[in-house]
């Protein structure tokens, strides 16, 4: 991961160069823009609601035609209702999409946090301690990998008592099934870091294992973890939407893009706007995180695919156990 050639003293700090590289990448900036846009949309949802006087819960039957589709063209778009209204309730679609952003981002980010924390912990321990811990944890990783995530999510959502807060449940479920890819990558990186001189030197000087993990290894995983986090957020957002799409997401009437999409799909012939807004929101926020994550990875690891780089510490025998994992492909898991 260390990028800078050795003999180049007195250069700017790392973060500066990362930011500079990021700034140079147009896709990354577009991605960042999208992410910021949706974060603002989510944060400001109540402000917009206050501004327009539209709550995502208020019914407006008077805005609907007798067939319950929104009256007026373009799904009932107007100065009052920027995205039009939802068919068969007349609720403001902009409010639904902006409050939906809160749900999507909250669950997506929190679930990512859960899976990254679990994955990093397990990967670190398995990679660092090896032996029995490694074998047990790798098996455990296999088990979780083997679980058909959706089935369990569906079953769990039926099993867990209704008094258990639904968003928390989703965060835990999505987060729990999302950690194995993180754990695998962290494990393999830890394995190679363990062999680096500074870790061996620390161990040889009697630094305790825990301290080595925290002070020596973890900081070197930071880049990997950050990139992994960024690119797995959209997957988590997508998982929430997919669960809502299957009807086991957040409880109505809490707005959710996935539920709106599954609902809107049957309206698309009558009221395409109903699908377009939540669908585009989901797509764009996913795209934003993906583009930003890509850019971030390139910025943090400029050696990746930059042609022959003679100075980078390249492992000469990259065996099959360390395939370069594209964090966006997580093998069917969220």
């Amino acid at each position, binding site marked *: 991961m260390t990028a800078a050639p050795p003999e180049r003293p007195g250069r700017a700090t790392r973060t500066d160069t990362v930011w500079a590289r990021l700034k140079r990448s147009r896709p990354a900036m577009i991605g960042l823009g999208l992410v910021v846009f949706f974060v603002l949309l989510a944060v400001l949802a109540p402000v917009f609601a206050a501004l327009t006087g539209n709550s995502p819960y208020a019914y407006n039957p008077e805005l609907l035609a007798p067939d319950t589709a929104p009256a007026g063209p373009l799904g009932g778009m107007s100065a009052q209702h920027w995205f039009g209204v939802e068919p068969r309730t007349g609720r403001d679609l902009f409010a639904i999409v902006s409050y939906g952003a809160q749900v999507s981002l909250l669950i997506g980010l929190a679930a990512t946090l859960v899976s990254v924390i679990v994955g990093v912990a397990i990967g670190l321990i398995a990679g660092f301690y090896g032996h029995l811990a490694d074998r047990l944890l790798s098996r455990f990783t296999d088990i979780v990998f083997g679980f058909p995530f959706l089935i369990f999510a569906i079953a769990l959502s039926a099993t867990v008592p209704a008094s258990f807060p639904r968003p928390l449940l989703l965060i835990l479920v999505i987060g729990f099934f999302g950690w194995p890819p993180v754990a695998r990558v962290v494990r393999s990186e830890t394995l190679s870091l363990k062999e680096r001189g500074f870790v061996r030197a620390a161990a040889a*000087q*009697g630094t305790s294992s825990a301290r080595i993990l925290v002070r020596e290894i973890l900081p*070197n995983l930071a880049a990997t973890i950050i990139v992994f986090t960024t690119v797995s957020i959209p997957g988590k957002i997508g998982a929430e939407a997919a669960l809502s799409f299957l009807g086991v997401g957040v409880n109505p009437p809490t707005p959710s893009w996935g539920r709106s999409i599954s609902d809107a799909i049957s309206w698309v012939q009558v009221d395409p706007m109903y699908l377009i807004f939540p669908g585009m929101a989901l797509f764009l926020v996913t795209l934003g995180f993906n583009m930003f994550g890509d850019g971030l990875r390139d910025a943090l690891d400029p050696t990746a695919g930059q042609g022959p780089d003679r100075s980078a510490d390249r492992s000469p025998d990259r065996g099959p156990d360390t395939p370069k994992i594209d964090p966006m492909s997580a093998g069917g898991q969220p």
Partner: protein
Amino acid sequence: MTATTPALSYRDYSVSFGSRTVTRDVSFDLVPGSILALVGESGSGKSVTALAPLGLVPGARQAGSVKLWDPAGPAGGGVGLTGAIELVGLDPAELRPIRGERIGVVFQEPMSAFNPMFRVGHQIAEAVRAHAGSDGAGGAGRGDIGQRVLAQLRAVGLPDPEKVAEAYPHELSGGQLQRAMIALATINSPQVLIADEPTTALDVTVQTGILDLLVDQAQAGQAVLLITHDMGVVADIADRVAVMKDGRIVETGSVEDIFDRPASDYTQQLLAAVPRLSAVVDARAPREERPVAPAPAADTVPAAELRDATVVHRSSGRQVIALDDVSLVIPAGRITGLVGESGSGKSTIANVLTGGQALTSGEAFVAGERVSTRPNRRQRRLRAEVGVVFQDPRGSLNPRRSVGSQIAEPLRVHTDLSGRDIDARVDVLLTDVQLPTDFAARFPHELSGGQRQRVAIARALALRPKLLIADEPTSALDVSVQRGVLTLLGELHASLDFACLFISHDLAVVEQLAGHVVVLKDGRVVEQGPSLEVLTDPAEAYTRRLIESAPVPDPRIQAARRAARLAA
């Protein structure tokens, strides 16, 4: 040999990457039948100079001229005559027939230069097939090519060519692969052979054979460009030498001229920095007497000791005996050198002493206490008695932490010094290793390789250990840098009075530093004793072979040795 017609001539050749120019105005000629050595520090532009004209350096922008002369062209012709191909500016399609056919290349790392997925014989045969069409050898069938490959493999001194041809790269040793690489590069009998550090990754005993092969190639009429940073190698086989610094040729001349009458300061420095093995140097000039360290007092506890230590690795069902019943004593307060070929178990000993590797049988002691791999407090405190410096300057420091905090780390772990005291200690340590104190705030990527190793030494010495283990701490460094680090180690040792286990494969380095040396082979101690004795008058054939294979930076001695060896 009428060496007037160059095979390849560089004129005012420059290469730049983007806005950065890395070589400037390079001019020299490669003459058939002779070896030109291109020497210089790492990063000086040697590889770029050699490979960019062939289009093997992506992103390189070239200027100037590199002409490949037609061997059939008129001898002694002037510039601009027909029969010369200008390589600069040639497009890839036109370069392709030249690569491998008229210019062969041998790379540094034989292991990574072969595609791991294909058999070695196949990869060599490809080189033939790639040029079969243009060559008139077009009719060559599969069998013919196979025979040619085998013959070529035999020609480079591989005793069992069939087995080598059938093998995958990982199934061969580095030396075998490098021979196969040379077979690959020369199978089409190119005019020019470029060898980019062909022996740096190899043991000295293996190196000799490879160098002989290059000499053979030159004698067969090829123009050889040998890139190296080892002045011993240069002295051994080069006819002419070009010295490169920061992308410029600072001096060119015959090998005798360069070694005996170096014109530029830089060349002088370079030669001065090269460690010399007294055993061989002795023959020429009497060496000043080295003080022999007094025998250790019998009652002092040795810094470390191994008793009947055996380490057996079991991986995927196979057993590797890394240490075989080794007993040795590292006396307190002195530097003990540990030499041996790659894989002989040197690092394993270091790992055992630092508690990183369990013994299969036997015992290990540090400062009189038994070492085990158990991570309990006692063992951890024991480890504070040992400081370690490893080979790789890049890996030796945590890229994410400042130099100061890394030097301070052992102090934080093992002492209850206050933050200010620690800072003060860090400053002292930095001064000890001759670095400015403001380096404490820097990050490793802001340091040079030599500076990093100094920091690593400072960290290793932070707790004033009784024993410093240095596992090839300078082998990745340029000679001039290496010299600085070694001098520093010697000075520190004199002032701080620690015991040191100095591991190296370079006998000259060991001799320079260590008063006592242990020779290891295949996990066994072959010989040990005062370095002066062992390295000038070895008792064991193995040690002698080690000494004799290490080239010394003196063309005359090398010529004599070569003659002796070939005569034998």
